[in-house]
C-alpha cells in the first residue's frame, strides 16, 4: 500500500458494511479516491462493485462505516447520500439520455435556465457548446442535434457533458467501454484525460483489465465483498490483479466427472456457419456439440454471447445460418421450428423472459407442453399434468408449498428450477443455457448443474454461456472464447480433471 494522507482524498470510504437479506455483500470495504485521479475498480460479478457505487449514488445506505467527502463526514448511515449535494455524478451503462431531445436539452435536463416563463434555449446552446469545447468535442457534436441521431460513443460524451453541466466534480464511469469499439474507447480515454487535467476525480469500473492499465492511476480489486487489493497501477502487474480477482480458492471435487467425449460419430449439433449483422455482430461462427458434451462459451459483455444463442434458437430472425442435427440439415426460422427440432433455450432474464409471474408453478411448467396435454374434448388433461409436475418437482428438488402456489413467491433458485423443468419436459436434444445461475444460491447452483449433467449423460448436448468463469471451468468439456462476435479460442477440457485455471481463462478473454 502507498502512503496517502486523508487530506489527499476527495472521497474516503472506511469499513463500509452492507448486508442484504442475511447475505453479506460488503464487509469492511475501504475505498478512497484522490483528487484528480482515475481510480479503477474491478471485481467479478457479485463482488460488490455495484453495491459500493450505489451507496455513493444514494441508492442504498450502508449498514455501518464512515464516508468522508471533501473533508466532510457523512456519519448518518440512516440517510441516503444525496449525490448532487456532493457533486457526484454517474455515467451509466445504459444511457440516461432522452433520445427525442437535443444534446443541449439533455445536458441541461432538470436544470433548465429560464428567461421569463420560457427556457433560455440560446443560453443552453452556448453553454453546451462551451462544455463540449472544453472536452475538445465542440467540432464533432452539435448541441442542436437530437440524441437519437448520435452514435453510442458520442452519447457517452454527452452524458459526461451533462455531468459537468450539473457541476459534477466526481464522476463514476460504470463499464463505459463495454459497448464501444476500439476507436471509440480511445476517444473516451482522451476525454477522460482532459477531465482529469481539469481536476475532476474519476472512479472507473471495468471488466477489461487492459483498459484499467491504460487509463487508471490506481486500481482497487473487490472480491466477495472485500477490498483485496489497492495500489498504483505503475507498481502493479496484470498478474497481480488477476490473482486478486480470482483468489486462491480451489474447487472441491464432487459427483461431476468430466468424461472423454466420443468425437468419432456425427456431432449432435453442427453449426456450419452462423452470421448476424444486426446490433452485436456475429461473424461466421462454427461450432460442434457432441453427445454428452457441455460446451462453455466465455466472453465479455457485448461479445455476442446472448445473440449467438438467440440466433440458434430462432428468436433472432435476422441471421444467416446452416445447422445440422444428427447429421441432418435442419431449418430454424422461428422458435417453434427450434422446439420441434429439439433445440431449447433457457433465457438470460428469469423474470422477464422465463416466467409468467402471475401463473402458478404448475401452469408455468405445463406451458411448454399444453398441446400434448390436450384430451379429446380439447381440454387440458389436469390429472396427467399434475402427475408430470409432481414428478418433476421431486426430481429437481423444487421447494414449494404446493404446485398451485404463484411462481412469484418462490426464491430465485427455485424459479430457475421451474424454468428448467418446463424446458426439459419438451425432451430437447440440445439445451442452450444463457447464464442460468445468475443471482441464485450455491445449493441451487449445484442442483441445477446436476440436472444439466444428467441431461447430457442421456446422450444430449448443452451450450452453456456463463459470465462465471469458475462455473465454466468446473463443468464444461470444452470452453470457447467469444470475442467481438467470433470464436477466438477453444480449450478442450474433456477427460482431464482440470487443465486451466481462472487466471489463464481471464487472460484469454
Amino acid at each position, binding site marked *: 500500500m502507498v502512503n496517502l494522507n486523508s487530506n489527499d482524498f476527495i472521497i474516503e470510504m472506511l469499513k463500509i458494511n452492507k448486508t442484504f437479506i442475511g447475505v453479506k455483500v460488503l464487509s469492511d470495504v475501504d475505498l478512497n479516491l484522490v483528487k484528480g485521479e482515475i481510480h479503477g475498480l474491478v471485481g467479478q460479478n457479485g463482488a460488490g462493485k455495484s453495491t459500493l457505487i450505489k451507496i455513493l449514488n444514494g441508492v442504498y445506505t450502508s449498514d455501518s462505516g464512515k464516508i468522508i467527502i471533501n473533508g466532510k463526514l457523512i456519519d448518518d448511515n440512516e440517510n441516503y447520500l444525496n449525490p448532487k449535494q456532493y457533486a457526484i455524478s454517474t455515467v451509466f451503462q445504459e444511457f440516461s439520455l432522452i433520445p427525442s431531445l437535443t444534446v443541449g436539452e439533455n445536458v441541461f435536463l432538470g436544470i433548465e435556465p429560464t428567461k421569463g416563463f420560457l427556457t433560455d434555449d440560446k443560453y443552453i446552446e452556448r453553454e453546451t457548446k462551451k462544455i463540449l469545447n472544453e472536452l475538445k468535442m465542440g467540432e464533432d457534436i452539435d448541441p442542436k442535434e437530437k440524441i437519437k441521431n448520435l452514435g453510442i460513443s458520442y452519447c457517452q460524451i454527452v452524458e459526461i457533458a451533462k455531468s459537468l453541466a450539473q457541476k459534477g466534480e466526481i464522476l463514476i464511469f460504470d463499464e463505459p467501454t463495454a459497448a464501444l469499439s476500439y476507436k471509440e474507447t480511445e476517444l473516451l480515454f482522451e476525454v477522460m484525460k482532459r477531465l482529469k487535467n481539469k481536476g475532476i476525480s474519476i472512479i472507473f469500473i471495468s471488466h477489461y483489465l487492459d483498459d484499467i492499465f491504460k487509463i487508471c492511476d490506481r486500481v482497487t480489486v473487490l472480491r466477495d465483498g472485500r477490498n483485496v487489493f489497492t495500489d498504483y497501477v505503475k507498481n502493479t502487474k496484470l498478474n497481480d490483479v488477476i490473482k486478486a480477482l480470482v483468489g486462491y480458492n480451489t474447487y472441491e471435487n464432487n459427483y461431476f466427472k468430466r468424461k472423454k467425449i466420443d468425437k468419432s460419430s456425427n456431432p449432435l449439433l453442427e453449426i456450419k456457419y452462423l452470421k448476424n449483422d444486426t446490433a452485436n455482430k456475429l461473424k461466421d461462427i462454427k461450432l460442434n456439440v457432441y453427445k454428452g458434451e457441455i460446451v462453455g462459451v466465455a466472453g465479455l459483455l457485448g461479445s455476442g454471447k446472448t445473440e449467438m444463442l438467440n440466433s440458434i434458437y430462432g428468436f433472432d430472425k435476422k441471421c444467416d445460418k446452416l445447422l445440422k442435427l444428427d447429421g441432418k440439415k435442419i431449418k430454424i426460422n422461428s422458435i417453434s421450428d427450434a422446439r420441434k427440432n429439439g433445440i431449447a433455450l433457457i*433465457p438470460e432474464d428469469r423474470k422477464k423472459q422465463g416466467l409468467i409471474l402471475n401463473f402458478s408453478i404448475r401452469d408455468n411448467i405445463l406451458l411448454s407442453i399444453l398441446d400434448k396435454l390436450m384430451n379429446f374434448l380439447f381440454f387440458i388433461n389436469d390429472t396427467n399434468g399434475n402427475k408430470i409436475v409432481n414428478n418433476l418437482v421431486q426430481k429437481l428438488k423444487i421447494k414449494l408449498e404446493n404446485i398451485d402456489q404463484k411462481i412469484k413467491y418462490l426464491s430465485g433458485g427455485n424459479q430457475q428450477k421451474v424454468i428448467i423443468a418446463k424446458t426439459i419436459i419438451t425432451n430437447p436434444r440440445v439445451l442452450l443455457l444463457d447464464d442460468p445461475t445468475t443471482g441464485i444460491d450455491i445449493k441451487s447452483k449445484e442442483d441445477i448443474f446436476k440436472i444439466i449433467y444428467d441431461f447430457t449423460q442421456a446422450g444430449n448436448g448443452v451450450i452453456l454461456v456463463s459470465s462465471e468463469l469458475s462455473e465454466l471451468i468446473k463443468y464444461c468439456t470444452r470452453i470457447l472464447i467469444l470475442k467481438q462476435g467470433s470464436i477466438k479460442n477453444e480449450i478442450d477440457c474433456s477427460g482431464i480433471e482440470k487443465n486451466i485455471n481462472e487466471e489463464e481463462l481471464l487472460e484469454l478473454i
Partner: protein
Amino acid sequence: MLNINKFKLRDYSNFVIYIMFILLLLLFSVLLFDKGFLTVNNLMNIAKQSATISIMAIGMTFVLCSGEIDLSIGSNVSLSALITTVLLRDYNIYIAILGGISIGALVGFINGLLVTKVKIPSFLATLGMMSILLGISRWISGLKSIPVTNKVYNFIFGIGRIGNISILLIWTIVALIIGQLVLKKTPFGRKVLATGGNKLAAIYTGIKVDRIKIETLMISGITASLAGMIYAGRLQGARYTLGGADLLTVIAATIIGGTSLFGGEGTVIGSVIGAFILGMVNNGLILLGLSIDQQIIARGFIIILAVSFSISED
C-alpha cells in the same frame, strides 16, 4: 392495514364480484320491493337486457387477457346487424346468420393483422376500425332502419322462449359456459393468459403470440356480431345506431368482473356477472323513478365504485 392483509386480500378479491352482485340484488330487492323488482318478470327482463353486453364482455375478456383491447365492437354490432338483416331480406336465414358471423370474424381478423403484422397498438387500430365500420353502416343503410320480418329469426335471436325462459338468457348461458371452458380449460385459453401475462416469456416458450392475438380479436369480433344479430332479433330490425353506447359498458362490465386491463388475468364468469350488475343497476335506477339524466349520473358513480372494489392493487 392493506399491506398486512395483502395475501388474504388477493384471494378475497376473486369473490368480491359475487359479493357485490348479491349485495346489490338484496339492496334493490328491499328498496324496490313494492315496485316489483323481485318478480320473475322483472328479473327475466334484466337478463334479456344484459344478454348483448354479456356476450360482448366474454369476447372482450379474451382480448384483454391477451394484453390487447378491442374498441371496434360497438360499430361491429351495427354493421353485423345490418348485413344480417339485408341478407335475411334478400336471401334466407342460413346465409344471413353465416354472413353476420363472418363479418364479425373478418373485422377481428383485420384488427389482428393490424396489431400483429403492421404493429399498430390495438387501442389505435381498433379505434380506426370503429370509425370505418360506423361509416360503412351509415352508408349501406342510408341511415334508415331495416326491419326483420322472419319469424324464425326473431324467435331464435330475440323474442323466443323455452318454457318460461327467454332465449336470450339461454344464449348468454351457452356463451358463458363455452367461454369459461375455453379460457380456463383449453391449451388455447392458457396461451391467451400467458401471452397477456408475459409476452416475452410466452415467445421464448414457443407460443405463437401473434396468432393468439389475432384469434382473440376474432373471438371478440364474432361475439360482437352475435350481439348485433340479437339486437336485430329483439328489436325486429337493424339500424346504424345499434350498439353505439355499448363499448364502454362492455369494458366496464369486464373490469368489474376482475379482468385486468393490462392482460394475463381474467374470468369469463366474472365478466358476465359484471354485465348483470350493470343491467341490474340500470333496471333498478329506472324503477326508482330517476330521470334519464339522473340515471346516467348515478350509473357513472356506480361504475367507478364497482371498479374500485374489483381492481386489485399490485
